[in-house]
């Protein structure tokens, strides 16, 4: 039940963000400062989520696996070069599998 409630609340928040400008108009979004601050949220969120996946175990800082870090770096580099997130995901998984195979997992 908690899972469905969490998804429902997340969906309500997501819809509210999508519909905000339709309902309330665009005065706030036209503010330059608001635009600057909001543009920083996406990189901050993504970086924090990557770091928490690699560096946190049960809520505490841990040493990340070499294969995992190399895979993330490879995915980042590929997308930076090609702009293709799917390709980055595929190559990252391949790098991780190769390094695990040679015992660097």
């Amino acid at each position, binding site marked *: 039940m*908690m*899972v*469905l409630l*969490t*998804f*429902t*609340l*997340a*969906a309500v*928040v*997501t819809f509210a*963000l*999508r*519909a905000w*400008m*339709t*309902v309330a*108009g*665009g005065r706030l*979004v036209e503010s330059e400062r608001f635009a*600057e*601050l*909001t*543009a*920083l*949220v*996406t*990189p*901050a*969120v*993504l*970086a*924090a*989520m*990557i*770091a*928490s*996946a*690699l*560096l*946190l175990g049960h*809520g505490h*800082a841990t040493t990340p696996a070499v294969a995992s870090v190399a*895979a*993330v770096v490879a*995915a*980042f580099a*590929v*997308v*930076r070069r090609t*702009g*293709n*997130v*799917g390709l*980055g*995901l595929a190559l990252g*998984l391949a790098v991780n*599998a190769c390094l*695990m*195979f040679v015992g660097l997992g």
Partner: protein
Amino acid sequence: MTAVVGECGVPLPVAPAAGPVRLAAQDTAPFMAALVPFGLAVGSASVAAGLSFVQAMYGALVMLAGAAQLAVVESLGRADGIVAAVVVTLLINLRFVYYGAGAARWFASARLPMRLLLVFPLVDQSFLLGQQRFDDSVDLVWRRRYYLTVTALLASSFVISQVVGYRLGAGLPPALGLHLAAPLVFAGMLAKHLQTPTARAAAVGAALAVPLLGGLTGPATLPAAIALGVLVGSRRWTR
């Protein structure tokens, strides 16, 4: 596209020569290809987080927002709690406010209930395609058909790949590293969002804050690190 000129020389909205459904299918194809591995990743992450098939599909259909859905799934797997999951969703999807502003312009002449329905499945890809195709000379009917086709194709490919990812998830060997799918997709998305020094400062600040705050702030580590990252980035911007 051709525009018909009205009495005062103002172009009247018309339908472009190409059919909206065919053009939408052509435009959406590369995005669909990129969505499949992402959908597989979300599906397998749902298995890893202990979600039932019904729960996973419910999340996919009510949210229609891949990165945030993945974050909620990860959050559920860590048992972070409802508040943390909703706050992370809010932060990840904040960009939808901008997309919503675009959709509000595209469908301004439609009635409010229709506009609210149309904005529900708005995602990164449909926003980018709409911005590309909907200039002032395109009429509302053409826009609506194009947008709904894009949305249907994106949503179906994402949900179907999640079904496949979920079904395969438990049977896939750990060596495939699908537990890494989330950070890999996020790393790819991050690579596209580091165009400015302030964005880079925000990302570095948030990433460094995670291990520093880990253990001190518990489930609030992620939102706290994000807030710190934005603060670091905005201070750099102020300079």
